[in-house]
C-alpha cells in the first residue's frame, strides 16, 4: 500500500537561479536517504517473496473463496468511491462558496473517523443498522464512506483552494450558465486532480481495510488472506504480495487516467497529497 505515495508535483517554472547550483554538486544526501527508505520498503517485500516462492502464486487462484473475496473488495471500492464523491463534491463546493466560515468546523468533523477507534464505530453501526442493509455490501460501503471522509474532504478542499472558485462561478453565472452547468463544465474540470486524489485514497483504503470488515463478518480480500493464512503460509503470503501489486497497478491506472490532459493544460499534475497549484491570495479582492 506504500506505493500510493508516488507524488509527482511539477514545478510550473523552474527558477533559473537554482538550477546551476543543483547541477554542480551531486546530491549525496538525497540519494542516501532515498536508498535507505527504499531498503526499508523493499527488504520485507523481498523476504516475503523468498518465503512464498514463485510456485505459490498459481496456487492462489485455486483456493476456495479467492474470487468472491476479491470481487467483494472491488465492488466495495466502486460503491464507496461513488457515494463519497457524490456526497462530498457538492458539499465541499457549497461550503467554499456559501459557508466559508464553517470550513474549520468541517475539518474538525471530518477528522473524527480517524480519532474514533474502528471497533467503536463498527459495533455502533451494527447496533443501529436497519435490517435490509445487514449482510449487504452497502452497509460496509457506507461505513467506508465515513472512513474515507477525512481523505476525500482534504483532497477536495485543497483542490477548490487551488483556483479562484468564487470568481469562476460568478463568471460562469454571468455568461448564462446555471448551477448544474457551472458545476459540470467549470468546477469539476478544475478539481479533476483533487477528485482523482480522493478516488485513489478511497480505493486504497477500501482495498486494505481489515478491522471493520472482519468484525462485521464480511469476507473481503484482506479478511480472506488472514483466514487463509492459518491453512497455508506460503500461499497466503503470495496472496498478500499479489494484493499489493494489484492495488498498486489499480492506483497507477487511476493516476494515469486522471493525469491525462492535466499536463496539456499546465494544471497541477496528479499529485496525491499536494494539489494547490497557485496561491491566489494576491487576487483577494478588497472587502467591500
Amino acid at each position, binding site marked *: 500500500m506504500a506505493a500510493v505515495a508516488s507524488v509527482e508535483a511539477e514545478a510550473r517554472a523552474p527558477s533559473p537561479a537554482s538550477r546551476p547550483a543543483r547541477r554542480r554538486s551531486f546530491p549525496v544526501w538525497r540519494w542516501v536517504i532515498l536508498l535507505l527508505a527504499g531498503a526499508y520498503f523493499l527488504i520485507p517485500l523481498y523476504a516475503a517473496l523468498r518465503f512464498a516462492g514463485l510456485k505459490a502464486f498459481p496456487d492462489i487462484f485455486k483456493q476456495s473463496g479467492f474470487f468472491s473475496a476479491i470481487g467483494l473488495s472491488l465492488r466495495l471500492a466502486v460503491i464507496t468511491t461513488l457515494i463519497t464523491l457524490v456526497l462530498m463534491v457538492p458539499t465541499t463546493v457549497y461550503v467554499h462558496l456559501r459557508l466559508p466560515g464553517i470550513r474549520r468546523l468541517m475539518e474538525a468533523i471530518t477528522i473524527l473517523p480517524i480519532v474514533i477507534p474502528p471497533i467503536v464505530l463498527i459495533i455502533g453501526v451494527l447496533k443501529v443498522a436497519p435490517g435490509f442493509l445487514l449482510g449487504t455490501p452497502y452497509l460496509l460501503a457506507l461505513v467506508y464512506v465515513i472512513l474515507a471522509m477525512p481523505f476525500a474532504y482534504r483532497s477536495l478542499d485543497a483542490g477548490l483552494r487551488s483556483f479562484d472558485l468564487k470568481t469562476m462561478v460568478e*463568471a460562469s453565472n*454571468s455568461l*448564462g*450558465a*446555471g448551477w448544474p452547468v457551472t458545476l459540470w463544465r*467549470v468546477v469539476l474540470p478544475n478539481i479533476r486532480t483533487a477528485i482523482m486524489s480522493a478516488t485513489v485514497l478511497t480505493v486504497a483504503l477500501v482495498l486494505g481495510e481489515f478491522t471493520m470488515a472482519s468484525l462485521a463478518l464480511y469476507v473481503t480480500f484482506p479478511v480472506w488472506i488472514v483466514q487463509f493464512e492459518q491453512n497455508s503460509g506460503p500461499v497466503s503470503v503470495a496472496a498478500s504480495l499479489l494484493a499489493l501489486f494489484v492495488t498498486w497497478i489499480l492506483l497507477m491506472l487511476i493516476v494515469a487516467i486522471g493525469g491525462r490532459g492535466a499536463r496539456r493544460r499546465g494544471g497541477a499534475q496528479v499529485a496525491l497529497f499536494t494539489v494547490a497549484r497557485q496561491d491566489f491570495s494576491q*487576487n483577494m479582492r478588497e472587502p*467591500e
Partner: protein
Amino acid sequence: MTTNTAAGTEAGGGVVRAAGNGAGAPVALENLSRSFGAVHALHGLSLDIEPGELVALLGPSGCGKTTALRILAGFETADSGSVTVDGKEVSRIPAARRDMGMVFQSYSLFPNMTALDNVGFGLRMRKQRGAHRNQRAGELLEMVGLTDQAKKYPHQMSGGQQQRVALARALAIEPRVLLLDEPLSALDAKVRLQLREQIRSLQQRLGTTTLFVTHDQEEALSMADRVGVMREGRLEQVAVPSVLYAEPATAFVAEFVGTMNRIPGELQGQGEVAALGAVVPVHGETATGLSGEVDVLVRPEGLHLTIQPGGNGIVTLQTFLGSVTRVSVRLSGDVTVKVDRPSSEAAALPPGASVQVSLPGAPVLVDERR
C-alpha cells in the same frame, strides 16, 4: 434573454457586432441600500445610466462601489431599492439570466478551456452550435487583437491578454450591460494604459451601456462619459469628468479627484473668504455650517505665482511633469502649497527663491480647518 441571431447571418465573417442593434439598455439604480452586518455598504444609492453610456464609479476601497456593481450583476441583493434595466425591474432575476457581460478584477478565464472556448462559453449557454460558435468567438478574439492566441490556455497568456480575452468573452453574449469590476488593477502600468484605450474605443463602437468600478481617478476620468464619486455608501457627485475636476461639489470630491492645496483662510460674511491677502467668493453652498477659520481649496493651476523678493513664500522643490513643472512653495505658518507653472518658466524658480503666491479671484471651495 436575447438569443443571438446576428451570428447566423454573418457567415461572411469580418463584421463584428457585439451589442445587437448597437443600442445599449438604459439602467436605473434607485435608492439602493445594503448592509453587511453592522457595515452599511450602500446608503440609498441612486444612479441612472443612459443607453450606450459609460459611467465610472470612483471611490476609496470600502465605499460601496463594488457592492453597487454586484447588485446590478445579480451577485448580491439589495436590502431595499430597485434595479431597472431597459424599463424592467430585474431584482428577482438570477445573475445567469440577466444578460450582463462582466470582467472581473482577478483573472477569471476558465483554466480548463482555451481562449476560443472561453469566449464561446456564453454562446454555448445560448445553444449556439459548434461551427457558428467558433466563428463568432474567433471574430470577438480578432476584435481584441488576439486571433493568434485562440488555442492557448489562460496560463499560457499574459495578464493583459487574459483580461482582453475576458472582455471578448463578456462582449460575445451581446450583453445589455457591460460590467467592469476594476479590470485593470492587476496589470502593470503600460498594459493598463493600452487596455484602457482599447476598452473605451470598443465600448463606444458597440454602444454598450457600461458600469465601470475603479479606485483609480485617472482611469475613471479618462474613460468615462460620467464619473460618480462615492464615499461611505453614498454618491457625492455624478458629473462629466471636466465638471468633476473644475467644479467639485464637495471637499471630498475635490481632494479625491486631482491634486488640491489647503490654504488657511477666514470666512467673511456674504459668502466670501479671506486668504493669501485677498478676499474671494466662496463656490457653491459648502459654507453652510462653517464659520471663522477654514481651509480654502485650490488646485495647483489655480494659484498665481510671481518672483518677488520679500514675498509670502519660498520655493522648496520642483517636480518636472512634462509641459508643466509643479513648484512647492512654503508659506508662513508651515503651510506648503503646490503651484503649476509652464516648464519654460520654472528655471527662474530655483529652490530658495522668494516668491509671492496669490489667489486670482475665482470662486473657491472651503472646508473646515484641519
